[in-house]
Each structure stands twice: as structure tokens, then as C-alpha cells.
């Protein structure tokens, strides 16, 4: 079986996902184009050399609809023979796009493929694509549908994470992200978003709040109490896990992932393709896996998929130098650390979505790149990247430097 190598990755800065965010003026198509164009330029890719572009978009409607991947590829000048496909596995879409790209290469059917993702949350809006899961009683009721924040609070309640626990984790995320920026740890991969004149619109992540402290977080009210109590989701949480007397609401905007705009992409290829185009491999895809997990708790999929991935790959915790788990909510990470007894110094070492934001469909590709940069910076070898997913799923990928 051919190996899939990672040759490069880039991402845009993450813009605040609101009308006053810097990237709000940038169309979803323009945003998705940025990392593709950057990959082409940085790697001197000729036209028509890429076999496919797989992009994760969670709300592929409106301007982000109708297979944005094909049009971003065209707009980026990859050549008219370069097709594109848009996928969604909710929050893991970007990582799944990388895995799908890798799978095409491993299957020997394609040579050079880009996997990535783009999400313009400020322009399209979270949930804009609708869907049966929360709405259709025949699904919502048996699947114990609840908003993700309530699931995150359910995890905190069930596994015993207090408000202090989740807030401390959030402060750490902010501090680590700030330090990473200060030391230029992201500079290798972040490409600015520019206007039609080449003027920079945004060059740096803008969601961060490096001055965050326990005291400042303590001012924030829990975000999901009202929807839990008035919307009936409290009862859904309790009926799904009846050992719980009441849900302990601990999550708020300061310890949950930020809503942001952003895009990222990873260039993958076979060994031969790399040689042919003069590319130097940075890492290879060791293994990846997907899993469905309990839909009510919803966000514990990373634990299940990691177990599956270890079993399938024959690897174990001690083989992993760095873990990168999307910080959808603080309790998701705390539960993962608890389940595998992971050293805090080995996980999300440059912060995560709590500080930097979570552009849904793009995040998976972005954090894979972030941890690869960190492996190189610290001269380590192997990393595991994973994300929790709506509906109760997990995706995980192990990369190894070459």
C-alpha cells in the first residue's frame, strides 16, 4: 500500500465570527481560496497537477453551498482539470478531508491531493444547513438531542469537572496560545488574507484574549442554563444519564470554542508525486479512524475513536509525543485527559479553539498543521489529532514525521 505523505500545510488567521470580525467582508469562496492559492505558490505547483481537492464545510449553504471545493480550486488557479468535493462530518470535517485525501493516495488511485476546510461562520451562520437530527421527532427523541453546550455540561457533571476546573483549563489555553504567537510558533503556516489589491485584511488570529484570568472568567454567566431549563434539555440530559440529579452548568463563552471565520489546507501525496514535483515530505499519515459514540453525551467520541485507533494501529499512548484535541469545550479536553491519564504538557501545547476559535469545517486541517509544526519545532516524532463531533462521533489521525 502506498504511503500518504504530508508535504505542506497552511491556514488563514481566524477572524472573529461576527459582523465586526475582520474576515466578515471576505466571501466564503474567497476565504476557501486563500490556503489553496498559498499551497500552490509555496510549493511551485504547476497547473493541473493536483488530482482532487477535498474541503470540509459544515454549513454548505448559500455562498458556501454547491460544492465550494471545485470553485475554490478554480479560483485558486489550480487548473481546470482539478476537481473538488465538499464533505461534512461536522466539526471533524477538516480532518476527515485530510483523511479522505490520504485514503485516495493510500489506495493508489490519486497522487497529489489537497485536504482542508473552510467556514465563514460570520456570513453563513452556524446551523444554517438545517437537518433532521434536532428537528425530526423520530430522530431527536431517541437520540436524546441536546445542544452541544448542554452535552458539554453533562460531561462536566458526569465526570466531575467543576467550574474552576474548566475555567483553569481555559486560562491555560489563552496563555499557551499567546505564548505561541509571541514566539512565532504559528508563523510558518499562517498566511494573511488579502484584498484584491494585495492589501492585508487579517494577518493574526483575532479571537484571543491573552489577559484572561480566573477572575475575569468568573464574571461570566453559564451559557446553557436557560436553554437547559426552559428548553427542556435538562430533562433530556438527565434521562440519558439518570445517575445525575441535575446538570451542573459550567460552560460559557470563555471556556468554549470561539465562533470564527477561517480556512486551512494540507497538501498530501505519494512518495513518487513528491519526488516528481520536487517536494520534501514532512510527515506521513500513520493511521486514522472514525467512530460513532453515544449521541447524548455526544462529545466523548475522541475517547472512543482513540481507543479504536490504538487498537487498529497497534500503537499505544506512550507512542504519542503530542496530542491535539479540538477544544470545543473545556470539559471535552478534561475528559480526554482523564480517560487516558495524559500529561498536561503533551496536549494542546499551543492552546486551542478556546483561545483561537473553531471555524467548524476548517479546524481539523488547521490543528493537524499546528501539531506538525510543533513536532518539528521540538524535534519530536508522533502526534495524534482528534476532534469531537456533533451527533456523537469521533475522528482521529496519527501522523509521524519522516
Amino acid at each position, binding site marked *: 500500500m502506498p504511503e500518504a505523505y504530508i508535504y505542506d500545510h497552511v491556514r488563514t488567521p481566524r477572524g472573529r465570527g461576527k459582523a465586526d470580525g475582520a474576515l466578515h467582508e471576505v466571501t466564503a469562496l474567497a476565504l476557501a481560496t486563500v490556503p489553496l492559492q498559498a499551497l500552490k505558490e509555496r510549493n511551485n505547483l504547476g497547473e493541473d497537477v493536483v488530482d482532487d481537492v477535498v474541503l470540509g464545510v459544515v454549513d454548505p449553504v448559500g455562498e458556501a453551498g454547491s460544492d465550494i471545493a471545485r470553485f475554490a480550486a478554480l479560483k485558486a488557479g489550480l487548473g481546470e482539470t482539478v476537481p473538488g468535493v465538499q464533505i461534512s462530518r461536522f466539526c471533524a470535517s477538516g480532518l476527515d478531508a485530510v483523511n479522505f485525501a490520504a485514503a485516495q493516495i493510500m489506495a493508489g488511485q490519486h497522487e497529489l491531493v489537497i485536504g482542508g476546510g473552510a467556514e465563514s461562520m460570520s456570513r453563513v451562520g452556524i*446551523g444554517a444547513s*438545517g437537518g433532521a437530527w*434536532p*428537528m*425530526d*421527532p*423520530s430522530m*431527536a*427523541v*431517541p437520540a*436524546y*438531542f*441536546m*445542544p452541544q453546550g448542554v452535552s458539554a455540561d453533562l460531561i462536566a457533571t458526569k465526570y466531575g469537572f467543576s467550574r474552576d476546573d474548566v475555567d483553569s483549563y481555559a486560562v491555560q489555553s489563552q496563555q499557551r496560545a499567546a505564548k505561541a504567537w509571541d514566539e512565532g510558533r504559528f508563523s510558518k503556516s499562517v498566511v494573511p488574507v488579502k484584498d484584491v489589491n494585495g492589501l492585508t485584511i487579517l494577518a493574526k488570529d483575532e479571537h484571543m484574549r491573552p489577559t484572561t484570568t480566573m477572575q475575569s472568567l468568573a464574571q461570566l454567566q453559564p451559557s446553557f442554563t436557560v*436553554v437547559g431549563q*426552559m*428548553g*427542556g*434539555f*435538562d*430533562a*433530556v440530559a*438527565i*434521562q440519558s*444519564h*439518570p*445517575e*445525575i*440529579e*441535575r446538570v451542573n452548568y459550567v460552560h460559557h463563552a470563555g471556556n468554549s470554542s470561539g465562533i470564527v471565520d477561517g480556512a486551512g489546507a494540507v497538501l498530501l501525496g505519494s512518495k513518487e508525486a513528491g519526488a516528481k514535483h520536487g517536494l520534501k515530505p514532512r510527515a506521513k499519515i500513520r493511521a486514522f479512524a472514525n467512530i460513532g459514540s453515544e449521541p447524548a453525551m455526544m462529545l466523548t467520541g475522541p475517547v472512543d475513536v482513540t481507543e479504536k485507533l490504538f487498537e487498529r494501529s497497534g500503537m499505544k499512548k506512550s507512542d504519542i509525543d503530542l496530542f491535539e484535541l479540538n477544544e470545543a469545550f473545556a470539559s471535552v479536553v478534561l475528559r480526554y485527559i482523564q480517560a487516558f491519564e495524559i500529561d498536561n504538557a503533551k496536549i494542546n501545547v499551543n492552546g486551542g479553539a478556546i483561545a483561537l476559535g473553531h471555524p467548524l469545517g476548517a479546524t481539523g486541517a488547521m490543528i493537524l498543521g499546528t501539531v506538525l509544526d510543533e513536532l518539528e519545532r521540538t524535534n519530536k516524532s508522533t502526534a495524534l489529532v482528534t476532534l469531537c463531533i456533533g451527533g456523537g462521533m469521533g475522528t482521529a489521525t496519527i501522523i509521524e514525521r519522516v
Partner: protein
Amino acid sequence: MAFKNFKVETDIDGIALVTWDIPGRSMNVLDETSTTELEEILKQTTADAAVKGVVITSAKEAFCAGADLSMLEGMNKEYAKVLKEKGEVAANQMLFDQSRRFSLVLRGIETCGKPWAAAINGLALGGGFEVTLSCHYRVAAENPKTRLGLPEVKVGLFPGAGGTQRVPRLVPPQDAMTILLKGDPVTVDKAKALNLIHAIVPAADLIKAAKDWIKGGGKAVAPWDEKGFKLPGGPVFSKAGMMMFPAGNAIYRRETYDNYPAARAIMSCVYEGLQLPIDAALRVESRYFTQVLRSKEAAAMIRSLFLSMQELNKGARRPQNVPASKIKKIAVIGAGFMGASVGYVSARAGLDVVLIDRDQESADKGKAHAKSVIDGLIAKGRAKQAEADAIMSRITPTADYAALGDCDLVIEAVFEDRKVKADTFAKAQQYLKADAIFASNTSTLPITSLAENFKEQGKFVGIHFFSPVEKMMLVEIILGKNTGDVALAAALDYVRIIGKTPIVVNDSRGFYANRCVGRYIAEGNEMFLEGVPPAMIENCAKMAGMPVGPLSLSDEVALDLGLKVIKATEADLGPNSINPDQKKLMVELVEKQGRLGRKNSKGFYDYPEKGKGQKSLWPGLSALQPKQLDPDTIDIEELKQRFLVVQAVEAARTVEDHVITDPREADVGSILGFGFAPFTGGTLSYIDFMGARKFVELCHKLEAKYGSRFTPPKLLEDMAASGETFYGRFPPKKAAA
């Protein structure tokens, strides 16, 4: 053409007045004949060029009380027959076609091209209200007592003739869901405010108003058949829809624990139907209606909550040969909480009440309780001052037993102590008039032995109320060995007067309800001792369908009382009759920790002061558990089953012991008396619908794991072997009409 259930008269203006008037019934119901005739009337009036429009009304006080549910029972029997003979597909098709029929008749009215107006002269419920919804215009007669609505969900059904489609096309989805899922009928004013009806007029003008609407050019097109129709709440997939449906699904689960297929079907009908044009939407509704009709929940709920309850209320168990008793005045001895409440509900029903206690002050206190209850109702706008004054004037508090002299029925509610009771009887019986009936409201002491202290045992009966008396609809009538028919008839007549539902049981320790509910509470304690997290015990009990968790119920009853019962049982029946660990737990809670339950704000739960938050489980509980189980290893379904099985098997024992002689009484009694999972139809229906064989297997499985409290009685083993049901083996006598 002449019709049996309708009269059709076409006036000079060409308006056909269709008057519903089923002969020999006090109320119109939607039955087979009415459906067929309505279809024929529709055909004729549509074809007859002289008819310009149609007004439908009723000659009864009510418009229509809804579908004849015994007709549905008949449909179920036919379904079973076709299922056996032709298989499931044919049976389902038959049921679907039948469900569809009435819906199509109503859609026919809506699309016939001639204006139809409903002149709603009184109560219109269920299918009756759906008839009016299919008319192009609805005008109701002014009357504060009239109720309109779709209460089907209360008996495990839903409005399957367009109700789930027309209501959310008339009113915003939130209101529509409340109307459909709660099933509470509304006044005409509310109906008008909700846009369910178009107009309210004085009763005398009703028909004229309906005709005037037609003469004024009333349009024969429903709003949803007009081009450009917009749903009142906007499309399902819109911002508003996204606010509504996810929360709706959650609230459905909160309210039902997903135990009620009809309620779930309503949700699906609205969600799916609002995305469709009306004809396709009605077809989807019929599909779900068919599915719900096939559910055991609907069959069980119709039987117990509608048919059986109606039969018991009509006096199914009353001895036929005893003439109606003339109860005008009663006495309650013991004006404590229970006695005062019994006095209140009796006075509210129009009876004169003598409230007796050891001194005037105590008796006055009992009357004051009645006043506080009625004042509460006035404050909530649910009673009028004049009504309250009348009730209070009927209650006479006194310490003088001589006041018993002209009472037709005397109910004692004194302290649960043989000596105190015997003294009361002795004191009372010297004043009783010759034909007076004497009743004890004891909940623990066997009636037969109490009766031995009474001079005429034939006139002594048990009338066991449940607390709070104002709310609890069940009354257990207990027959002692020597209780006579006259006493039984008087007790039943009395319960009928106060508007509650009676069950008649033979004497035994705990009678019927408390025997079952005692098992429920004890099972909660067993789980606690096994190490199940207390919240899980409570939540699983509610998920099983019980209204209150067993630990909460223990707190409500009072833990010291629970301990007293354990000690008394041990003293009377020996050490093997109780679980020493449960006793130890209660001794620890009551005697060492001073936790008496709700009454001292400390029990299994801590109770905050009123208005200062919710009760919460006492954090010290886990220290009283010998061990703690990992909740992820606990079988939730088994916990739920244990709660229902332990009560149902006890109910089966009461049948074997001849305490219960009529399965209807076990079922209705269990739902009204202690809230046994209503969707099962009650304790014995739970077994019947599971099948005795499967139930006995389940008992044996639980017996092997948890002990002899799950051992099925021989009766059940026999029924499992023969494949019998309780309703088959003990067929209930039909009600006296």
C-alpha cells in the same frame, strides 16, 4: 332521505341545516352510523343544486363528545382477527383504510365547493371538534361552560381526522403543540382568542349567525387551500421553526419520558405534515394514527382510563338489588388533616357535614382547613365566594357526638390505634340512627377485626381515602367479612356523590393500593442498599412511568412512619417478614440522623425553605450505602422493570388472595391511587399486555437475582401455562347503564 342520527332541513335560501341528534343517547358521539350518514349528507348536499351551503349543529346540549371509543375497541378486535387470518400487512392496511375513512369525509366537506358552517351549540371534543375544524366557518354559542378541544392524547390516542394538521395551520406551533399534547379543552373565549373559531354569538342567534355567514358570501375554501397560504409559525425549516421543534422534542421527552407513542406521533405529524400540502399531510397523519391504534399503550389506556373508569364511576360493582341510598348528611369523626379534607370534599359535593373532634377547638380547626382550601381556590379564580359561603355553611364543627343522630353516613378518621377506634365506635353507636352506615377511613387496620368492635357488623365498611383527598380521585371501599350489601351500596353511592372513582376490595393488610405502593417504596430502598446512585433510583422510577420517585415518596409519607410500619410488621408477622437491612437504614435515618422526611425538611432529600430553590438529595446518603455501583455498569432497563414488576406481581397476589376480584379495579385503582405507569393501563394490564408467560419469565429472572419478592404466585404460573389474561380469566361484569 331520512337519516337515523341527523335531521336535514333546507330553508328557503337554500341553506341545509344538518342537526345531529343520535336517538337514545344524551350526547352525540362519533360512531359508525354517524360517519356513514355524514358522508351521505355531504354527497347529497353537494349534488343538490338547490343547496347553497350547509350549517351543521346538534340538537343535544353538547355538539359532540367525540369518538365512540368502544367502536375503537371493536376495531382492535377486528384487527386481531384479520391479523390472524391474513397476516400483518393485510391487518395494517385494513386499519389504515378505516382510520383514513373519517379523515377523508371531513376533507370532503372542506373541498366540496359549498360553504359549510359549524354552529357549535355546546361542548365539542375530539372527533366532534374535528368535524367543526373541517367546516369553513365556526361560530359558537356564548356559554362559559362550553369546552372545545382535542383530548385524545389523554387516552393514548391523538386527533386523527385532521386535528394535527388543521390546528397548527390555524394557530402558531407553540399553541398548537399545547392544544394537541396536553389535550386540555378550552372555553369558547379562549378558542376565539386562539383563532380556533371565528365568532361567538348569543345562543339564540347561533343558527342565524351561521346562515348569515353563508348568505354573506362565506367562502367555501379553507385558508390552506388558498394560493399563497402561509403557516402561522412560518416554515418548519426557518429560524422560528428551529426555535420551536428542538425544544418541542425536548419538552415532549420531559413531560412523557418517551412512554407515550400518541404524543410522539403528534410531534411527528406536526413536523412532517407542516412540510406538506394538506392532502399529503392528512395521509401522513392517518399513517401515524394507524400506528398508534396498533400500540398496546392506546389499547391499554382506552380500556382503563376511559371505558373501565366510566364503568366504575357508573357503579359497576354496586349491588343491583339495593335501592339508591338517600345520603344527605354525613359526619366525620376526627377533624385532623384527613378528616377535615373528607368533610370538605363532602360539603363541596352538597352534603351537610358534621365535623366531630374531642373538643370544639379541634373541630373548629378542621373547618378552618376547609376554609383555607376553598380560599386557595378563590385566589386562583377557580371558585366563587358565594360557592365558598355555601360550602362553609354546610360544615358544622362540634365536640358533641349527639350531632350524629340524623347522619346517614358516619366516617371515622381518628388516630390509627385499635383502642382509640374502639372507644370512638362505642361513643358513636349510641347516637346513630337505625339505618346509618358506619365507615372507617383506616389505611392500615383490617376492617373485619375493627368491625368486631361495632354492634352491627353488616353496616360497617371501610372507606379509604388517599392523601391529599382534594386531589386524589380514588377511594378504596373495603369489605369486611360481614359487611352487608346495603353498606356497600351506600359507600358506592357516597363516592359517586363526591365525584370520585371507587374500587371495591376485600379485607387484607394494606388492602390493595398500599400493598402495591409499599412494594414500590421498598424496592427503592433495596436499590439504595445495592449501591445504585440515589438520583438514578429516582430518575429510573420516573422513567418507568411513576409520578414520584420512591425516595421522594418515602419522604412524603414520612420516614418515621415507614419505620413504624416495618416495626409493626416485624412484631405481627415475625422477623422474616422484613428486610433487616432496610430496617437498619430507616433506624439510621430516623433515630440516629433525625431525618423524618418532608415534615422536618430532612429525609432522603434536603428541603429548602419555601421559595428558596428545589429540594436536593442529601449529600450524606452515600455514606449510608454499604457500597456504590459504577452507574455505567447498571442496567437501566432492569431498574425500570423492577419498579413496575414488583408492584404488578403484588397486584397479582391480591387477585390470588381475592382482595381484588375485578381486574378493572386493580388497573384503575393503580393509576388513580398511586400513579402506576398510566401508559400500561395499570398493574394487571401491564401483565396482560406483556403476556403472562413472558411476565412470569421476567419474574423468575428477577427472583434469581433479587429474591422472593419477585416470586410469581401460583395463579400467574397457571395463567402462564394456559396463556390466559386477567381480563380473560376474570371477565368484568358490564356496567349497570
